[in-house]
């Protein structure tokens, strides 16, 4: 009982406060962006799981009223003193209020992002043209050179006429490969989940750092896919002429905060990435971390809850 509780709290603290700073330490040459993305997502998922498990455990631990749900089944209320029950009830009230407040601030945000995206897509449908050669591309009449992607069943990539003029055929191919990688790897969904986690638990170091680091890593992962198919030289040329963003997900606020430095970092990495190859052992360790980051809090939480349901 006490061990499962300690394990749960330890995993919540380790994942929520330490995992992010540690992941942030890895230099970009040491770990491939795709692997880093997996680690970050696992750390985020683990943090959210551990956090919710801690809340559930706190709610159903005796002699709180939440435990009454379990006790109802087992009928063991008289063991606890009146004062203890009152204190636990107050604690429960505070905890439930805090959780409701956090959810109330996070969920409407998600709804807004989805509505915003839908409106954007409706407008596109009225204004954009189909691309002659690429079936999955829409063309928007605007001189600013931009390419982006939107999660959609068909025609998820949008290219402005300015981008078409600025890019050669080969460069456009590389840009499209980059955007297709975003869509194939479900990066929009990851960004949306990241935003939700950030609005629920904004003060945890892991979540805060994921918010500033993950968007750039997603771009790098898509860069890798495009560079593999078209060569990094062509991709760098294309990136320098326009910006490729994973579309208005409503998830990346304007305060994303890495500014023009992000593009410089991506280009530098593409130009030097041939030299340093990430080691295989690093990849295996990363996968092991990702797997344990999700399973440890799940297991500890489940065991703690089952233990509590046996206690009177």
């Amino acid at each position, binding site marked *: 009982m006490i061990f499962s509780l300690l394990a749960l709290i330890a995993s919540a603290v380790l994942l929520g406060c330490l995992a992010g700073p540690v992941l942030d330490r890895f230099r970009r040459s040491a770990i491939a962006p795709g692997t880093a993305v997996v680690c970050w997502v696992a750390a985020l998922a683990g943090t959210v799981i551990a956090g919710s498990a801690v809340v559930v455990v706190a709610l159903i631990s005796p002699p709180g009223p939440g435990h009454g749900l379990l006790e109802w089944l087992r009928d063991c209320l008289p063991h606890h003193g009146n004062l203890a029950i009152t204190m636990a009830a107050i604690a429960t009230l505070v905890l439930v209020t805090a959780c409701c407040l956090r959810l109330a601030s996070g969920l409407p945000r998600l709804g807004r992002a989805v509505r*915003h995206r839908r409106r*954007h*897509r409706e*407008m*596109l*449908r*009225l*204004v*954009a043209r*189909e691309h002659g050669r690429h079936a999955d591309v*829409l063309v*928007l*009449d*605007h*001189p*600013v*050179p*931009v390419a*982006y992607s939107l999660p*959609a*069943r*068909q*025609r*998820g990539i*949008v290219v*402005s006429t*300015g981008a078409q003029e*600025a890019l050669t055929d080969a460069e456009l191919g590389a840009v499209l490969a980059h955007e297709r990688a975003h869509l194939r790897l479900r990066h929009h969904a990851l960004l949306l989940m990241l935003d939700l986690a950030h609005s629920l638990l904004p003060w945890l170091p892991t979540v805060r750092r994921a918010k500033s680091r993950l*968007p*750039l890593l997603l771009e790098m992962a898509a860069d890798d896919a495009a560079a593999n198919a078209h060569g990094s030289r062509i991709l760098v040329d294309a990136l320098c*002429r*326009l*910006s490729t*963003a994973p*579309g*208005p*997900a*409503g998830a*990346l*606020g*304007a305060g*994303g*905060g*890495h*500014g*023009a430095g*992000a*593009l410089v970092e991506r280009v530098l990495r593409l130009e030097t990435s041939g030299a340093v190859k990430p080691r295989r052992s690093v990849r295996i360790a990363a996968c092991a971390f990702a797997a344990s980051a999700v399973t440890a809090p799940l297991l500890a939480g489940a065991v703690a809850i089952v233990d509590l349901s046996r206690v009177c």
Partner: protein
Amino acid sequence: MAGLAGSLERSVMDVLWAAPGPLRVRELLARLNENADKALAYNTVQTVAERLAQKGLLQRTQDGLAFRYSPTRAREEYAVELMLDVLTDAPDHGAILARFAESVPPEDARHLLDVLRRRASDDWA
């Protein structure tokens, strides 16, 4: 994004954007059927126009017993709004705008500068 070309709403908007002024449903219908394989029914077009008006994309003005429909905003305005949507979400939109400003031809740059100057003086006023 399915059936972009086949979307009736889009065809109606295209016709109205191309038209010199507000159109009645009958005129709209005639232009839509000009180069269509299958003629559309009057009621269909009226329903679509009404729906677009409800969405705020079209405005209607009374003309005798009928209504005339016209787009509330020009096509370019939608393109600009979509673009702003993308740029405010992009982490490096300042850099995109800078690269764009460097790439425009001199006469366009002068035009852009005039607009910006006018806007700046508006903001001050």
